[in-house]
């Protein structure tokens, strides 16, 4: 059980010529035993963060603490961490057994103990049959299992995963995701998991950290992030299809906010927001909260169907409206066809408001 703490971490790659640092004043605590997922678009600094925790990169400023021990200048070998690379990074000239045993041999464990631990891990990851093979004789999924096994067998204080599943096909990715969840439940080891895939983030995380351009956008549980995104970027990053964004103007009218867009008007409980008196806003509403049938408190918006995507259990309707483009998740039996005019209903309780300029949640 170990707590990892990043304090004021910045990273500026020397000679990269980039004007913007890869990471800027990052503060983050990964509580003991939790699985924290760092998520964000490519190039936002996820790997850099992980590599700084691993000791593969030195931060330009700031400190890395593991269990209150300052390890900022400590070699990776002395940090008691294990890392799973996106590219697997298996030792190609060693058998699977030797790959798993490598770290244990360095720690000079007895041969019998090494054998016991390697076999136990191999059994739990179902790679026993391949212990004598070289990595090149394994499939992608098997290699990934070996890479995970190599981390697990060490029983480290902290696990680091850098997009471990992004080289796998969709089905394997799901299997391995559950495998990682199972391992985490079993070992309760503090873990940092990097991905650009919001589904992985939602399904695996105790806590999600959303990164963009080297800065933290939001930290929270998956449901907090989904239900109360801190800004427009976070709101748009999570959820499929993405949240609808409609430009509007907000005005404070005795106790509530009147939000007016092209073709709709609704009142939002102002107590919920610390909004200024008036201004441009972006109204966000998730596709599943826009309905085709009338609800008591919902407000109508006239729209026209442009595209209908059938997903089986549901359909996704892409609509054009005076307020802007709109995506709606509807029951598969919904009759709407391209060209149809219809009225959709926006639930004021499900509306997110973002400041028009700063894009922060109001």
């Amino acid at each position: 059980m170990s707590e990892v703490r990043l304090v004021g971490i910045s990273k500026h790659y020397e000679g990269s010529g980039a004007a913007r640092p890869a990471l800027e004043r990052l503060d983050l605590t990964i509580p003991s035993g939790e699985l924290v997922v760092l998520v964000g678009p490519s190039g936002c600094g996820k790997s850099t963060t992980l590599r700084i925790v691993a000791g593969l990169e030195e931060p330009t400023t700031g400190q890395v603490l593991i269990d209150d021990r300052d390890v900022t200048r400590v070699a990776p070998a002395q940090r008691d961490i294990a890392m799973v690379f996106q590219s697997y990074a298996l030792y190609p000239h060693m058998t699977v057994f030797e790959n798993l045993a490598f770290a244990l041999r360095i720690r000079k464990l007895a041969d019998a103990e090494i054998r016991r631990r390697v076999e136990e891990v191999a059994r739990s990851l179902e790679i026993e049959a391949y212990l004598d093979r070289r990595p090149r004789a394994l499939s992608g999924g098997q290699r990934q299992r070996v890479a995970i096994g190599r981390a697990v067998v060490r029983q480290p204080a902290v696990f680091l995963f850098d997009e471990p599943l992004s080289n796998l096909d969709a089905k394997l990715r799901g299997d391995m995701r559950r495998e990682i969840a199972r391992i985490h439940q079993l070992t309760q080891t503090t873990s940092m998991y990097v991905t650009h895939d919001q589904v992985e983030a939602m399904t695996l995380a105790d806590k999600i950290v959303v990164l963009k351009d080297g800065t933290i956008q939001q930290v929270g549980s998956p449901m907090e992030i989904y239900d109360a995104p801190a800004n427009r970027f976070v709101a748009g990053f999570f959820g499929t299809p993405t949240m609808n964004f409609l430009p509007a103007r907000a005005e404070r009218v005795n106790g509530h906010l009147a939000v007016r867009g092209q073709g709709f008007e609704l009142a939002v409980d102002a107590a919920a927001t610390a909004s200024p008196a008036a201004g441009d806003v972006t109204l966000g509403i998730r596709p599943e909260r826009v309905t085709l049938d009338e609800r008591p408190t919902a407000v109508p918006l006239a729209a026209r169907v442009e595209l209908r995507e059938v997903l089986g259990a549901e359909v996704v309707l892409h609509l054009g409206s005076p307020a802007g483009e709109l995506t709606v998740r509807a029951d598969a039996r919904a009759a709407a066809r391209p060209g149809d005019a219809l009225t959709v209903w926006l639930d004021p309780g499900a509306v997110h408001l973002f400041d028009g300029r700063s894009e922060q949640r109001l």
Partner: protein
Amino acid sequence: MSAASPAGTRRPSVLAQVATYAALLVVTMAVLYPVLLVCKKAFEPGRQFALSASPMPRDLTLDHFRDLASAEGPHGELLFLRHALNSLVAALATTVVGVVLSCTAAYALSRFRFPGRRAGLTTFLVVQMFPASMLLLPLYVLLDRMGMLNSLVGLVLVYATTAIPFCVWTLKGYFDSLPKELEEAARIDGAGPWRVFFTIMLPLARPGIAVTALFSFMTAWNEFIMASTFMTDETRYTLPVLLQSSVGQYSADWGLFAAGAIVTSLPVMALFYVLQRSLVGGLTSGSVKG
């Protein structure tokens, strides 16, 4: 890839194949003809190079090889054995020194960033551009000052310094091509720099090392100008010097020369054969993806 385009998978016509093989045959013969002539001379009686263009000897004899093996020096020592031994010691020592130093240097230049790195790499490249004959005089003076004329140690020193720049560049290129994640994984697994070098990088660089070993060996084994300049004592000759002395200005024995040339080329061929197994690609396959 080519499955989509019928043109890419079509087999060449018979005529095209015949033409290809005929061309290859001509080139092969052109390359092998001089070698065959030397072989012919080695087994043919007589000191003169016959003017016949045929690669087949008229008569067969092993006299030249016997002469080669039995030539004696002023104190009755067997010269050929001495020279072969000199060559072997010089070549092996050059190989060992060259490979050991260039492996470590190339790894450092490939993976570490330190002051002087670029300058060092450039220097290695620049010194490659000077022909050996230009360095002959300064090297002679240096070796003389150090008392290393007529010394195998001196010769190895010269050979190793000639071979190392090329070896370093070759090996550096090889180390550069090995995925960085492997080292990082090993470092996280607890390996120190030396263990990473010996247990991860060196085994994976085997093809590169084989190339540089071969190159170092051949640099020393085939070298003539320096050996003939620095080794004035007949017992210190290497095989190329012996070969040259057998076709001296006044008494050219081409039979002896040819026999010597064949014997001299055998170890290089053997080494090639042994090392070719290491000259395989794809050692890192299966290790990283994406």
